């Protein structure tokens, strides 16, 4: 059903205020930290102090033996195995508690239980970990060299997976008039939701059921994974996710802590809770984003790309994380690096590398922010080399609207969109000529002005595998007209702050003609919702939105049938809208229909559909390869060459996410994502020492952008419908986080290149800027700074 539907006040396209904000803004949200049960006890974990070692013993004082559990106790629990079906993938085994080999700082060694967290930590402090330290594998490039220490005996060469495309670039490489080569890095980051992870596990003796309350983006997936490692029937597990204080991918995992809690709850007879603290999140759990690239781009004198040759490494850390595996990032790198550009010949090799760091998890945008950064820095480098405006080089290479639908060099299928127009809008909004003029006459305070642009395509809402070629797991949503005439919508997807209680209600309102105030969307409980693979991949509004529409349209037709019977008219002659069924002569309200159906069925004729006024609707987009959201970011920065300080003076986002269900919520998504991208560009970095110790253990060391660092972000929308989705909508949850690293890095380099400086790694910190300026000054000639250490 392509095409933009008519705007209504409460349906698709309405800037409806978020229904859930009433409880959030009044402090009535319920997070794991608010969940309490009688007799609940608290867990603290003993974690590894070293990155790589043989575990030789865990000494527990005798009087604490009943409060401390190790791998020797959890003998009936399977290791976490996150295995990619891609050929050549070498899997890791991740036991919930270390059995014999420690592979990263912070790895779980023992579980301690006490009445309070502080007492549990007191116990943990008395447990002595004995180990023989091994050389740590910290640098992902050295890890791949022959002779490197292996982190897993079973993962040869410390490479989980090699993927790529093997285009014949040699001819272009020989003859191309323009060749640009760069080495690029993006720092290891830590995804930082305000609420860290947390779980409460308990055993319900009446139902013989494990009940896990947990902050998760996909309760059904956690249930499936738990059943595998605990080796119990899935029916014996219920996962409840209350309000989630930010997900960003960090709550789309199954990890050791919750497995340990469940194991204990099944045996101890009381509920147990673990709340991750900020130090655990920073140093032991939430790593993401660390990539390394060596890229050569070949172009003609106009900047038109002839060939592109990349070698990428992703530091995937010590284990393949469940369920997305360590294959997801290199696969995305290889497939998505070309972005929205027409590249005739493409070669790319991308490796997922094992190191002694905690597992790398897919953070908002997954590999897209990194590949956007890499590609967009290359295009700016080409532009500088040939003396053209960076946006002109992009216009020469972007896929054009008349080419849609378009299958690119990696077989990505672009459904719709006008990328040149997206770019032109960004260029107009940021005001390129005025900035160039300003650069000419300089700043009175000595700062240097720079302009940077990035443009990218975000493949959203693809099928349950990244390649989209395998079968879909259909998404289902349940809808029921209650006896008092209100609408109950139950979905297995989880809201992690993205406003699904509102947007799904808007879609239901669009399809059923019921006011959102009378629609209640219930999420986050495996016991009462259809299966869902959860909230990730910017899929919610396409998949759960589509399923909501299907359920509500079917429910509307059943309501119409009952209404027609009550109006004594043919069902073909009635309409469901504005809370009623309208016939040729008169109408009947949905509450009267519901009352008749549930409470006075004797008033109805005998041929009413026995399936009743409740429906589970199922949905998948008409193609599984995803729908491509296009976006451009443009930034103006002022760089202080004396301090290395960077201020963002202006920031523009142009986004085409198809038909917007709620533009206000989309704006919010973009603001939040852009703030995180600004973090990646300028602030966020988790450094490690040569022994694999993470060096930022508090938010005083790991810098996140705050309000003063996030500028007023000016958002402009385009709405090119997708031909493959229910209303023409596309996914948009991750997009904001993708563009800033590239746009801001390009802006800083635009400011500094006249001083002979080009910085090829993010975050661009004051320290890196000053070091680059100092080395350019020493050299006396323009020099490129690649991969400076912190």
């Amino acid at each position, binding site marked *: 059903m392509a095409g933009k539907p008519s705007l209504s006040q409460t349906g698709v396209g309405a800037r409806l205020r978020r229904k859930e904000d009433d409880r959030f803004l009044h402090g009535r949200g319920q997070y794991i930290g608010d969940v309490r049960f009688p007799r609940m006890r608290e867990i603290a974990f003993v974690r590894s102090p070293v990155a790589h070692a043989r575990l030789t013993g865990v000494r527990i004082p005798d009087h604490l033996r009943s409060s401390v559990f190790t791998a020797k106790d959890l003998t009936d629990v399977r290791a976490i195995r996150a295995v990619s079906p891609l050929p050549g993938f070498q899997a890791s085994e991740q036991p919930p508690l270390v059995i014999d080999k420690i592979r990263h700082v912070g790895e779980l060694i023992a579980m301690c239980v006490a009445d309070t967290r502080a007492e549990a930590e007191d116990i943990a402090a008395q447990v002595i970990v004995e180990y023989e330290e091994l050389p740590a594998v910290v640098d992902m490039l050295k890890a791949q060299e022959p002779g490197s220490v292996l982190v897993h005996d079973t993962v040869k060469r410390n490479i989980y997976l090699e993927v790529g495309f093997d285009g014949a670039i040699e001819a272009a490489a020989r003859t191309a008039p323009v060749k640009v080569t760069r080495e690029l890095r993006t720092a290891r980051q830590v995804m930082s939701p305000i609420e860290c992870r947390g779980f409460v596990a308990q055993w319900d003796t009446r139902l013989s059921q494990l009940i896990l309350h947990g902050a998760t983006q996909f309760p059904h997936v956690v249930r499936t994974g738990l059943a595998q490692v605990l080796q119990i029937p899935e029916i014996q597990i219920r996962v409840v996710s209350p309000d989630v204080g930010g997900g960003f991918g960090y709550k789309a995992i199954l990890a050791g802590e919750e497995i340990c809690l469940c194991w204990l709850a099944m045996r101890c007879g009381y509920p147990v809770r673990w709340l991750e603290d900020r130090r655990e999140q920073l140093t032991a759990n939430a790593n993401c984003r660390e990539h390394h690239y060596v890229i050569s781009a070949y172009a003609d004198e106009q900047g038109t790309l002839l060939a592109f040759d990349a070698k990428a490494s992703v530091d995937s850390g010590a284990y393949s994380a469940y369920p997305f595996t360590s294959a997801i990032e290199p696969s995305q790198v290889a497939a998505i690096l070309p972005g929205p550009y027409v590249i005739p010949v493409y070669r790319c090799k991308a490796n997922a590398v094992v190191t002694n760091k905690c597992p790398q998890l897919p953070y908002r945008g997954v590999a897209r922010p990194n590949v956007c950064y890499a590609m967009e820095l290359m295009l700016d480098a080409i532009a500088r080399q040939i003396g053209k405006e960076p946006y002109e080089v992009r216009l020469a290479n972007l896929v054009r609207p008349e080419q849609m639908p378009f299958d690119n060099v990696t077989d990505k299928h672009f459904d719709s969109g006008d990328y040149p127009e997206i770019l032109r809008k960004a260029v107009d909004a940021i005001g390129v000529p005025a900035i160039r003029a300003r650069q000419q006459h300089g700043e009175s305070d000595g700062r240097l002005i720079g302009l940077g642009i990035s443009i990218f395509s975000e493949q959203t809402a693809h099928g349950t595998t990244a390649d989209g070629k395998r079968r879909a797991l259909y998404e289902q949503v349940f809808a029921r007209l209650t006896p008092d005439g209100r609408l109950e919508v139950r979905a297995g997807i989880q809201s992690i702050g993205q406003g699904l209680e509102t947007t799904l209600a808007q879609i239901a309102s669009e399809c059923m003609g019921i006011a959102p105030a009378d629609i209640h969307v219930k999420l986050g409980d495996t016991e009462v919702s259809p299966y869902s693979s959860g909230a990730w991949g910017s899929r919610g509004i396409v998949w759960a939105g589509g399923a909501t529409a299907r359920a509500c349209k079917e429910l509307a037709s059943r309501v119409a049938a009952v209404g027609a019977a009550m109006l004594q008219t043919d069902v073909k002659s009635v309409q469901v809208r504005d809370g009623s069924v309208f016939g040729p002569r008169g109408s009947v309200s949905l509450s009267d229909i519901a009352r008749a159906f549930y409470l006075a069925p004797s008033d109805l004729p005998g041929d009413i559909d026995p399936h009743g006024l409740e429906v589970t609707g199922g949905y998948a987009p008409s193609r599984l390869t995803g729908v491509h959201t296009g976006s451009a970011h443009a930034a103006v920065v002022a760089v202080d060459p004396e*301090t290395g300080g960077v201020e963002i003076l202006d920031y523009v986002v142009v986004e085409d996410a198809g038909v917007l269900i709620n533009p206000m919520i989309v704006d919010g998504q973009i603001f939040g994502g852009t703030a995180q991208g600004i973090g990646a560009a300028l602030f966020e970095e988790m450094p490690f020492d040569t022994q694999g110790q993470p060096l930022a253990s508090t938010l005083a060391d790991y810098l996140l952008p705050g309000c003063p660092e996030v500028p007023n972000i000016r958002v402009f929308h385009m709405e090119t419908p997708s031909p493959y989705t229910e209303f023409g909508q596309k996914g948009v949850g991750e997009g904001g986080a993708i563009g800033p690293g590239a746009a801001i890095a390009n802006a800083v380099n635009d400011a500094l290149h006249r001083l002979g400086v080009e910085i090829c790694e993010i975050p661009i910190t004051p320290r890196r800027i000053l070091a680059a300026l100092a080395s350019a000054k020493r050299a006396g000639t323009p020099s490129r700074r690649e991969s400076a250490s912190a």
Partner: protein
Amino acid sequence: MKPVAFDYERPVTLADAATLLGQSNGFAKILAGGQSLGAMLNLRLAQPDLLVDITSIPELTAVTDAGDHLEIGACVTHADIEDGRVADHFAGLLRQVAGRIAYRPVRNRGTIGGSIAHADPAADWLSALALIDAKAVVWSRAGTRPIPVADLVVSSFTTVLQPDELIRSVRVPKLSAGARWGFYKFSQKAGEFAHAIGGVLHDPARNVFRAVIGAIETAPIVVADAAALFGGGFGSELAERLDRTSVLQRLDAKNVTDEYLRSLAAVALKRAANQACAA
């Protein structure tokens, strides 16, 4: 993380505080606002047996005008100073410094005495109070001794304070009419600890021309006669006259080898000089 179990006492007299400190055999920590100590307790970097909360001792929150100086109680908060509840005899220097410490919630509880006793080299008060030549009035049962703030800190997080001593107040000399100052702090984001601090103070009526270089991972560098740094007295083109070699030599003397901190220190001082001249 959660702190280890500790006892908590909130005495209302200095004598009681001294008794508690004396009984604890050095295993007590003084809580004067808790904006740094709170985090250290939670991370178990500090594991005291006893916390002595001194914020309810009336004389520690008092501000006394003593003619040529102000005696600011150790437990006066940054916000008290920022908001002007402490009279400004300092040409706005203390107010401005206070208002740029960390974030407002920190300023609401954090105290001037607590900050300098904590001795984080990157903290604002250490440099600002050294610049203005304030003294920490250190109290114990044996009596009081005033210690110039510049001499209070031995190194990072280490002071000359004995276990039975506490800072009672900060003695800040009043500036004369016509005094000028500049105080430049560089941090990557608002509220973050400083990467560099430079300060310049000129009070001709009191014959004062001082400078400070702070946030250098140890006690700040105080230059009591800043003419040595600027190749002459306070006046025009001060920033341009800054002797970079002299700055670097002083950093050498403090073993500051990090090129980043070294170059920022000179920039901070230069900008402070510009501010002072523009004032």
